[in-house]
């Protein structure tokens, strides 16, 4: 392979790595925010799944409503349908329903772990199982309702508004395809990650949140409402993670939902939190790296050896393990997880 061909390959590889990375970035930003409050939400895969299906339900209902209005004498008029499809509503309805679904999941988690002080690991894992179950149930129902003959549901027209690239992307060659070719939610993910990073490092509320995750008794004695911070961080974190599910189905998958297609991205997002040593700004680059590692096996010629492909699929997890080993070897306090991560807090406990 000569150099020019390699470059061309790279220019096509990087955007694909980025779109793979975006759902992970949403998930890890949300989980980092959550973990900074001391809540280890292992329900993130479920939250992202519910975020995705909630968005699909919203989009589906809107799609049905528009279809109803575009049907003249029992026949769908495609041009009328296109005209009736409002760009703002096409984005706002799926997004709001996604946020609502993810928020509900976050609230369930908080109620169980913060208010009732249930075990965080058990609650989180249960939430993942629950979220995937709800997602598959709703997904299956929609597929039934739409009477589709393949086991998936396509909201192609609505999804166009999600993966509209920035203007000029097509005219700017490699620059356009590397930086401008993504849907708006990709840029939103980066913005949110940087915003959360700024919030954690520079603002008073961020300082308070970190202290809640490190040492809730201290935060409490300083007059910080521990439960409120935990609720807020976990719910907002869940909503951010939920957007990852929405991005996956509406942008990456072009509005096509099929059950279980989301795969293990939720777990990768949690691995990414560890990989970035709890820094959302690092997550921007790291998520693209993970995205690249996730699809690396498609770019490496392995011939008929399918087993080798499976080995390449392990790459993100192996890298996470290596980071875990390195960061615990260096044993720097700043690189450790929040000290009270995973533990319940009860003020009058002795």
């Amino acid at each position, binding site marked *: 392979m000569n150099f020019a061909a390699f470059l061309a390959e790279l220019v096509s590889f990087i955007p694909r790595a980025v779109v793979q990375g975006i759902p992970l970035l949403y998930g890890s930003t949300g989980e980092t925010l959550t973990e900074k409050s001391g809540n280890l939400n292992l329900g993130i895969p479920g939250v992202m799944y519910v975020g995705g299906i909630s968005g699909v339900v919203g989009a589906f209902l809107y799609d049905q409503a528009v279809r109803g209005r575009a049907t003249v004498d029992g026949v769908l008029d495609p041009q009328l349908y296109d005209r009736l499809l409002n760009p703002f509503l096409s984005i706002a309805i799926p997004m709001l329903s996604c946020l609502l679904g993810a928020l509900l999941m976050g609230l369930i988690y908080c109620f169980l772990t913060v208010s009732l002080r249930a075990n965080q690991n058990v609650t989180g894992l249960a939430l993942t199982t629950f979220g995937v179950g709800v997602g598959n149930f709703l997904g299956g129902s929609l597929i039934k309702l739409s009477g589709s003959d393949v086991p998936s549901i396509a909201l192609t027209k609505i999804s166009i508004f999600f993966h509209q690239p920035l203007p000029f992307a097509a005219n700017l060659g490699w620059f356009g395809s590397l930086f401008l070719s993504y849907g708006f939610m990709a840029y939103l993910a980066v913005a949110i990650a940087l915003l959360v990073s700024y919030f954690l490092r520079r603002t008073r509320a961020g300082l308070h949140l*970190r202290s809640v995750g490190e040492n809730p*008794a*201290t935060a409490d004695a300083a*007059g910080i409402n521990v439960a409120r911070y935990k609720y807020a961080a976990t719910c907002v974190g869940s909503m951010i993670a939920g957007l990852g599910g929405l991005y996956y189905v509406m942008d990456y998958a072009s509005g096509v939902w099929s059950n279980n297609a989301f795969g293990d991205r939720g777990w990768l997002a949690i691995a990414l939190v560890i990989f970035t040593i709890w820094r959302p700004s690092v997550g921007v680059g790291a998520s693209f790296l993970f995205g690249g590692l996730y699809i690396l096996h498609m770019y490496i010629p392995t011939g008929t050896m399918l087993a080798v492909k499976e080995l390449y699929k392990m790459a993100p997890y192996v890298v996470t393990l290596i980071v875990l080993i390195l960061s615990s070897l260096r044993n720097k*306090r700043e690189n450790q997880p929040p000290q009270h991560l995973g533990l319940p807090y009860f003020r009058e406990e002795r």
Partner: protein
Amino acid sequence: MDRGTPAVSLRNISKRFGQVQANSHIDLDIYRGEILALLGENGSGKTTLMNMLSGIYFPDEGTIAIDGRKVMIDSPRTAIELGIGMIHQHFKLVDVLTAAENIELGLKGKLNLQQATRKIREISDAYGFDVDPQQKIYDMSVSQKQTVEILKVLYRGADILILDEPTAVLTPQETEKLFRVLRNMRDDGKAIVIITHKMHEVLSLSDRVAVLRRGEYVGDMITAETTAQDMTNRMVGHSVTLNIERPEPVDPKPRIKVSGLTVLSDTGVPKLENVSFTAYSGEILGIAGIAGSGQKELLEAIAGLQAVSAGSIAYIEDDGACEELIGKDPLEIQHMGVALSFVPEDRLGMGLVGSMDLDENMMLRTYRSGALPVTDRKLPHQIAQKVVDELEVATPSLHTPVRNLSGGNVQKVLVGREITSAPKVLLTAYAVRGLDINSSYMIYDLLNQQKKKGVAVVYVGEDLDVLLELADRILVLCGGKISGILPGRSATKDEIGLMMTRVGGGAEKNDA
């Protein structure tokens, strides 16, 4: 005597936790320009009372008035707004944050760390604190952390300061420094409450003493008009003798001979360096040193719990037969008669299981005995009963989880259990940590009994006054090295204090 309106006046305050009445109908006044010492045995409710003042707990009944105005302190934030600042026994600091960030914690408004740093420096200069606002807490010494705690409350403009056993972790020099700062603050018109068990500190620092007994208010006294004996009697409710006896060792024989002992931490930092000494039977060997100077590693090395990188530890029988302890497992060492009772800072961390009751905790030592496959529950029950009776452990029953006992009682259970195993060598660390004076004396008495029985007692202590009265010889550790071994009957506190901070002591004098 007219002292104006009290800064704080507590009336009829009660608080109960489950079955335990921590405070019952307490009336107490705190005045400005005065240092009030709050005295009481363990579990007498001192900390609970002060926690209600600082908003951690809410009283079940009673009223609190600040400057004559009735207030409701429903959260730590309210307490701060009312000018009440509490410095807890266990520091409430976030390790990964800097001093400035910790001090800013819980305040309102936009976060401006530069401005905060400036203001912290101003306060530090005014009272003579020595602290770097940019330093992370985990890099700090205990004394520095305490300084940050005090700065924290001053930064919030507190003029009512409560200190819960502030000197428990300080060297004599650091304590003196702290007292100077406290006196400065008193002269500045602040109201100061200090909770402590150390009588000599009460006498040298406070202006007035208030005494609690079993959750009830006994009364207050002007410090200058009272004596340690009088205070103790009131605290305990009956007359106690305040002298630690120190019988001459009878027929001391070498029992444990440590030579060239070196222990490295996980990261390769030496925790103990070339430590050599001999502990004799029938003698109490006191070990002094700043917390973390290698006391824990030393005791654990002898008990077989700590990997040793060089040196030897020999156990010597009465007939002179020598046996090397290094390389033996802890159980064998235990069977040879070496008992370890280590009371860590959180008291429960080592030796007792918090959620198990007294019987079961005794069983941790005895469960291997008996021939049947089922465990023998009778023996541990007897031991538990004996410990409770002899040491006057305050517990609702033998089936109460030890976690629910107050700190002092937990320690009695731990030390009591080790003593009932009739050891040849008794290693104790911080056996009286946080214990009130009456319980402490009971423990000293127990140690002396063991000594008279010919046990070699190694006693790691924090309170130098006690070490000087109790120990026959005092070994001073400094940064993992032996700074010196002094005879307990002639050593002085200053001498030991200096040796704690510098190997060999002496040399240049520091400011204390």
